[in-house]
């Protein structure tokens, strides 16, 4: 007996041409999800809460960054200083007027 019984080229080609994938019925996925849930192997999806938390965190980061930028921007500091100086001059004028 030889080690392998060789098929004809046509038979080998026919085997190679066999379908490799078949879509299972959609009901199978539903049944599987139910079974996994019943057995406690599948937790309910937290997708929405995770998304909301991510959006909230992104918004907080953005607002925090914006506020920090406003407080520390050099342009703002000059403006604040100018405003302070103007206010001092006005105070001096008021004092002089009295």
């Amino acid at each position, binding site marked *: 007996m030889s080690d392998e*019984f060789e098929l*004809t080229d046509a038979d080998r080609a*026919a085997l190679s041409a066999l379908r490799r*994938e078949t879509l299972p019925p959609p009901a199978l*996925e539903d049944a599987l999800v139910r079974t*996994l849930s019943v057995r406690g192997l599948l937790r309910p999806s937290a997708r929405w809460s995770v998304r909301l938390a991510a959006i909230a965190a992104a918004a907080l980061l953005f607002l925090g960054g914006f506020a920090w930028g406003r407080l520390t921007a050099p342009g703002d500091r000059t403006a604040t200083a100018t405003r302070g100086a103007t206010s001092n001059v006005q105070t001096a004028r008021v004092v002089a007027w009295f």
Partner: protein
Amino acid sequence: MLYRRHTPRLFQVLARILDVRADAEDAAQETWIRAVQSLPGFRWESAFQSWLIGIGINVARNMIRRRHEYSQLTPDTTPAMSESPDGGIDVERALGRLPPGQRMVLVLHDVEGWTHEEIAQRLGMATGTSKSQLFDARRALCVLLHPISPHASRT
């Protein structure tokens, strides 16, 4: 995501090995349940699909074993296959007529491209057993495909 990506291939392998669509559905479901249970121990550097199909093969083997035990208690009611004018049948049907053990080895080796070593390891048999199963399976397949061909009667 994982389910939709890998199930069509798994389902086809199971359907071909078990030759009964309803059994393939049961086996696919059982395979995924076992896979989910074993997922924490899965090392993601190896191919997920091969791992999944490996689980499916074990599930299919158990089903075949149970089916064999059941068939010994009940008469065979399998309908006769229709044949082409030259007496041969198409490959898919011919595969379905092979004994389950031979069919499994032939599908894994000649259709799925597994090596004898992989088959032997997965099915818990000696490499030589896988080779002899393949020899018998190919010869039986050839007889089914070409009943009057001299090639089919070769030993």
